[in-house]
């Protein structure tokens, strides 16, 4: 079942003995007993959702994730535990939420701050264009849709993501573009989506290279070591892949590859 995502709806509270009775029925296949327990815990799931809010997810989506945790707890509760159901269920609900957020959050802070910092810079320029004054941190946070705290941290740091060796270009020019420059202004989800699509067109080795470089923030030298090739080869391969991916993504028709002549 899908529990109704209604915050206002007060859940009926059941004592632990009644819950245990319903749990036995549910585990024996009684659907309505299961629904009953879920409904009785809607408020609880919402209180967990509140703690994980402000991370760019719809509360309703997080609520559904929380309900999955709750249902797992209902199905897996072991009567030999001798604990209240809530003692077992609450960590399961939090854990489910945590896993969901983690799967999506393997990006290094350094990378995400850099993106935020770029967004803030643009938002600030826009603000100044309209108002003629510099925005306050609250105004800026509001404009970009993040926490004031995030603005503070991002203003201090564009914690650089690329390594030194990789971006020291010698005479042959053509700086290697970071993937996040492929889709400068587009929303994050689009960038990720398009990137994923483009990734699918790569062979295993190319995929590994991109993953190591851009998702694990390894340097070219480190990747070279792992793939057993030279750094120059990594650099060339990477350039080729990026060129290929840029065409695949076609997100930035104005990205010129013309410099490649040399």
């Amino acid at each position: 079942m899908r529990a109704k995502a209604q915050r206002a709806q007060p859940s009926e509270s059941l004592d632990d003995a009644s819950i245990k009775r319903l749990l036995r029925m549910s585990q024996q296949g009684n659907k309505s007993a299961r629904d009953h327990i879920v409904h009785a815990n809607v408020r609880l799931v919402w209180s967990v959702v509140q703690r994980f809010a402000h991370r760019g997810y719809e509360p309703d989506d997080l609520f559904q994730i929380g309900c999955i945790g709750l249902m797992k707890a209902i199905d897996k509760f072991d009567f030999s535990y001798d604990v209240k159901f809530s003692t077992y269920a609450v960590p399961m609900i939090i854990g489910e939420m945590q896993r969901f957020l983690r799967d999506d959050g393997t990006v290094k802070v350094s990378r995400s701050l850099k993106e935020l910092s770029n967004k803030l810079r643009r938002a600030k320029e826009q603000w100044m264009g309209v108002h003629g004054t510099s925005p306050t941190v609250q105004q800026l946070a509001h404009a970009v849709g993040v926490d004031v705290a995030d603005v503070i941290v991002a203003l201090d740091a564009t914690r650089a993501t690329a390594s030194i060796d990789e971006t020291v270009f010698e005479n042959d020019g053509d700086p290697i573009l970071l993937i996040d420059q492929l889709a400068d202004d587009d929303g994050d989800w689009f960038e990720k989506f398009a990137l994923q699509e483009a990734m699918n067109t790569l062979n295993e080795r190319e995929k590994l290279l991109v993953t190591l470089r851009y998702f694990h923030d390894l340097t070219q030298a480190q990747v070279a070591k792992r793939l057993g090739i030279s750094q120059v080869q990594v650099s060339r391969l990477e350039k080729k892949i990026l060129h290929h991916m840029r065409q695949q993504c076609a997100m930035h028709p104005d990205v010129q590859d013309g410099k490649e002549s040399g």
Partner: protein
Amino acid sequence: MNTFTLSFASRSENESFARVAVSAFAAQLDPTVEEIREIQTVISEAVTNAIIHGYQDRTDGTVTIYGRIQDGSLHVSIIDFGVGMEDVALARTPLYTSKPDLERSGIGFTIMEQLCDAIEVDSAPGRGTRIELCKRIAPVMVS
């Protein structure tokens, strides 16, 4: 090993300050975005508890955070000299809250336990409370 100590007035506007400060310190471990969010969440739970339970919303108390980075882990203690707790085990029970009237739901401790690798609680009635949290920041595994 790197350490810091931060003390501030028990005012709710300092919750966000404490969160940012601790996560700025933890940034040295190069965490992922989600790890930083988790750190911010647990600091928020512990500091809020110190202010609303420990100091009962009085603003003249002092909350102290002691932080340490060692062996790739962040260790943080959050200390208040407030009312303390009689029964720590009861307090840690999921859904137990002494302030249901304030719409607290009693999941603060459970969140800290879930999002940290270890948690220790020391408390004495009338003396105060110390929560010690440990969170490992795993270097990204390259599979």
